């Protein structure tokens, strides 16, 4: 296909030249994956073939566009309307998301538009309708936007299963994936189910550096507050700045610190996932209209509508991941062929080294990313149930179809059959549900036993399982909504506790009908600064770079002088961690023995290692008392010294300890809840469903314990274990750490080493509690009784 003359004229009237990658996509025969930086006309490139084809065709759905963000679908609809109107094309473009009205959805089912813009969840819902073959039979093209983001989680796996279904319903379908820069384009193309990779001109190298600060980074901590005056200076010089911060709590604190010194009253906003949706939308609108000079944001702004006026990105805190850093940098200056400007602010000295290593990686265009492994089976279970909602299916045919999806191309028939069995009978060793199977095999086809179950199954669509969250409102009738906090955080609050939300300090008053009621506490330091959120571990590749940089004194010239001196001192009194060597130290301090280990395996793996090693130390009688884990290091304190670390790091012992410990672990229970919800074993809690005065549903922990006791080989437990090993437990990286360390360099020191010293200042200490929780509860109960005068 070539660009028709009227399209060429249109480009010329805009004063544009079609980009080579836009023409390449037009000419492409099969499926394609376009890798392009932001501002490269990616979206238009994706839609150009559809617009050209739709000139001469009408009737039925022609193009499906899927994006991870609802907001993007609305934005795309607006952007497309201009060329469509200019070219006088008779094309109907509509979006369909969770927000679309029921009447509109029903009409779209009867009479689909030419181009439908949607999200993975809405697509899964549409595919579960009996009318799916009619709706999608005419489909010619699918455009998958921000595919790099979707491929990182289960939403992408679900989307790929949906895509395989679409290819069955419309065999002539052509797929175009659109992605930001990724480390391995071919892997992403394979994820998409195959396709030719097309690279757009990556544009000029970004202008990226560490932010020069008036004071050096502190020894420990994660706030980056020392750099507030320097960040304000940068904001003043730029047109619009996005300040990325890794966690919501740190974003709140940094936002407050900025305003405390914002003497010019620069308009600065805050944007993160715990804020009420209205508050986020207000900030986005103010950004779009250029009213804000800066916005402090978390990953909530990693994707989204392009704001042309953003000309500076500041990353506060370690970037953790080079690919994400590059994508964030791309948010600055969405004009093609202009370099993006970005500055990095390390929060402490360890992060100084990480920032420098990350800058080198950006310059080398060496992106990181750990392969996610095969498609998860909980998503497949959901897919099978939703397929049954659409109508009876043949297991052989569905197996073949599922293997067309990239993440499931190596799926074994055994695993597939286990998922079908789970969907049909629950898959229990005790075959208790023969009469009440959810799916029945009749005439060789699987179908829902009770078609009314389809409604509940559709309610359960999706792969994002949010932790239970509670709304936070000002006290009193109709108090303003401030945002949401996780239920677990709310449960720790007591009346009078103060915490930060929406950039202000509030006092907790009461929990009423699942709403946290608070009062504003002006000018008061919050008592509780942090609430739990996702803790991202530094990527494997970046950790290796950091270790290599620390271990090679000839490269220390690129470090700031204070950091250089610090490492030199470490080399003198102990040893520098270096590639291939695992450095650990034993030293006394304050009457306790300390053991430090520089493993560079990322926060989650180091934490797991801490838990496993302290168990072994407990058995060995060393009296471990607590530990701290960071992305790079582990520090354990104990009553007796570790004199021989070798047995503590024995791989077989660690693996055995992992098996024991995982069983009763809270991390596993959390993973189980996610897996069981996605697979359809438990219903997700829908907003407004939980009412006061009725017994809440029982906790998924009970199901987990019951299964472990009575059916330890159940599919859900297998999926949970596989998931936990990869994710929060991250045992794979412990093994990787042992693999790449041929040598153990253990030093007995008289005092704390320079590298270990900052660890003592870190928070996030994990006390060892053998029978701790129960003892804690007993102590608390006794104290309460005594204080209430009842004991």
């Amino acid at each position: 296909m070539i660009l028709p003359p009227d399209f060429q004229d249109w480009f010329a009237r805009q004063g544009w030249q079609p980009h080579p990658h836009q023409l390449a996509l037009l000419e492409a025969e099969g499926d394609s994956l376009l890798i392009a930086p932001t501002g490269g006309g990616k979206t238009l490139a994706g839609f150009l073939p559809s617009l050209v084809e739709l000139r001469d065709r009408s009737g039925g759905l022609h193009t499906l566009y899927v994006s991870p963000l609802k907001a993007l679908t609305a934005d795309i609809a607006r952007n497309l309307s201009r060329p469509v109107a200019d070219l006088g094309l008779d094309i109907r473009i509509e979006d369909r998301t969770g927000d679309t009205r029921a009447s509109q959805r029903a009409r779209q089912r009867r009479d689909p538009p030419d181009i439908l813009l949607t999200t993975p969840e809405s697509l899964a819902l549409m595919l579960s309708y009996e009318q799916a073959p009619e709706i999608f039979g005419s489909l010619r093209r699918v455009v998958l936007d921000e595919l790099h983001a979707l491929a990182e989680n289960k939403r992408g796996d679900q989307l790929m299963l949906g895509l395989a279904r679409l290819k069955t319903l419309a065999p002539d379908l052509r797929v175009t994936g659109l992605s930001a820069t990724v480390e391995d384009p071919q892997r992403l193309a394979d994820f998409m189910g195959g396709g030719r990779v097309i690279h757009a001109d990556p544009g000029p190298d970004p202008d990226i550096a560490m932010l020069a600060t008036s004071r050096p980074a502190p020894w420990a901590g994660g706030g980056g507050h020392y750099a507030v005056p320097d960040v304000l200076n940068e904001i003043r010089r730029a047109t619009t700045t996005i300040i990325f911060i890794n966690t919501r709590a740190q974003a709140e604190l940094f936002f407050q610190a900025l305003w405390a010194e914002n003497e010019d009253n620069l308009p600065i906003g805050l944007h993160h996932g715990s804020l009420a949706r209205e508050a986020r939308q207000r900030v986005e609108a103010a950004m779009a209209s250029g009213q804000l000079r800066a916005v402090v944001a978390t990953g909530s702004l990693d994707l989204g509508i392009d704001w042309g006026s953003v000309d500076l990105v500041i990353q506060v805190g370690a970037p953790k991941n080079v690919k994400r850093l590059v994508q964030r940098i791309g948010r600055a200056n969405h004009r093609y062929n202009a370099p993006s400007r970005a500055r990095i602010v390390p929060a402490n000295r360890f992060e100084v080294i990480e920032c420098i290593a990350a800058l080198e990686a950006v310059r080398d265009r060496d992106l990181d990313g750990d392969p996610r492994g095969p498609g998860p089976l909980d998503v497949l279970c959901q897919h099978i149930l939703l397929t049954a909602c659409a109508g009876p299916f043949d297991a052989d045919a569905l197996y073949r179809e599922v293997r067309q999806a990239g993440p499931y191309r190596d799926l074994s028939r055994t695993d597939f059959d286990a998922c079908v069995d789970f969907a049909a009978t629950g898959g229990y060793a005790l075959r208790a549900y023969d009469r009440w199977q959810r799916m029945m095999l009749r005439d060789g086809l699987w179908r829902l036993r009770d078609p009314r179950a389809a409604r509940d199954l559709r309610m359960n669509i999706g792969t994002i399982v949010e932790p239970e969250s509670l709304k936070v409102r000002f006290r009193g009738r109709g108090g303003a909504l401030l945002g949401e906090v996780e239920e677990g955080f709310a449960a720790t609050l007591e009346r009078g506790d103060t915490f930060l939300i929406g950039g202000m300090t509030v006092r907790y008053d009461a929990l009423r009908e699942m709403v946290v009621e608070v009062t504003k506490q002006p000018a008061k330091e919050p008592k509780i600064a942090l609430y739990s959120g996702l803790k991202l571990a530094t990527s494997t590749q970046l950790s290796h770079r950091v270790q290599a940089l620390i271990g090679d004194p000839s490269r220390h010239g690129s470090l700031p002088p204070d950091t250089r001196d610090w490492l030199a001192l470490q080399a003198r009194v102990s040893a520098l961690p270096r590639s291939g060597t695992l450095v650990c130290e034993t030293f006394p301090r304050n009457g306790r023995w300390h053991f430090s280990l520089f493993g560079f395996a990322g926060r989650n793996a180091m934490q797991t290692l801490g838990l496993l090693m302290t168990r072994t130390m407990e058995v060995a009688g060393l009296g471990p008392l607590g530990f701290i884990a960071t992305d790079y290091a582990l520090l354990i304190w104990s009553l007796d010294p570790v004199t021989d670390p070798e047995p503590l790091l024995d791989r077989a012992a660690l693996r055995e300890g992992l098996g024991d410990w995982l069983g009763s672990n809270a991390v596993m229970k959390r993973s189980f809840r996610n897996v069981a919800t996605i697979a359809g074993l438990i219903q997700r809690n829908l907003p407004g469903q939980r009412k006061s005065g009725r017994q809440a549903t029982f906790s998924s922990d009970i199901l987990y314990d019951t299964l472990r006791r009575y059916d330890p080989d159940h599919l859900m437990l297998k999926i949970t274990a596989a998931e936990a090993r990869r994710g929060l437990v991250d045992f794979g990286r412990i093994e990787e750490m042992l693999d790449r360390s041929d040598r153990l360099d253990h030093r007995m020191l008289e005092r704390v080493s320079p590298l270990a010293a900052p660890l003592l200042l870190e928070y996030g200490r994990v006390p060892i509690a053998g029978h701790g929780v129960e003892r804690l509860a007993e102590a608390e109960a006794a104290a309460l009784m005594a204080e209430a005068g009842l004991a």
Partner: protein
Amino acid sequence: MTSHIFDFAGQRLEARASGALYWPARRWLIVADLHLGKSERMARRGGALLPPYETQATLDRLAAEILATDPAVVVSLGDGFDDDAAGRALPDHFCDNLRRMAAGRRWVWVSGNHDPGALCPRMPGETAQELHEGLTLRHEAGQGPDISGHFHPCVRLAGQRLRCFLIGRDHLIVPAFGEYTGGLDVADRALSSLIPQGIAVACGNRAMPVPVGHPIRRARPARRIGR
């Protein structure tokens, strides 16, 4: 297994960590909300296929309590079955199990809102709407003093949610004994209107009494940062 011993309506009672109530003077063992057959009922009604082991788990725990206390009378305080059909559908080996537990003692099924109907003939024991023993035993709290179940009370302690007894002046509410039973926080209006001030006995590995609705003033230790 420990228990908390207390006086209610002039009677000395024992709140056991298992969630069962023991009345030593009469040798009565009282359990509420067994909800036997819950997973079967959910499957029958087209809901989720939950692990079908909760009836076994509940009966195992009940048998252990009977062994430990050797009661003369066992009272199920209502919602013993998740519905009347669940009682009828209970597999034979569970019925045998119950008959063995009931051998040599009186067994009373108080009716609840889930199981208002007649007892399936395979079950041991008798049914009753209420029992009057100086105080009333019934499913849902009414005119006090009474011992009841129904609400599945639970309490938060050191970040954990635990099922609990709720002891007030007029009402004693027993926790749900069944395995797959949710809970209602003792601070919820439905419970606080019945028992504005009292003691909750949390059921962990031990029975732990905590005050409910009492004003408490105390200095709290500094919060841990970065939990």
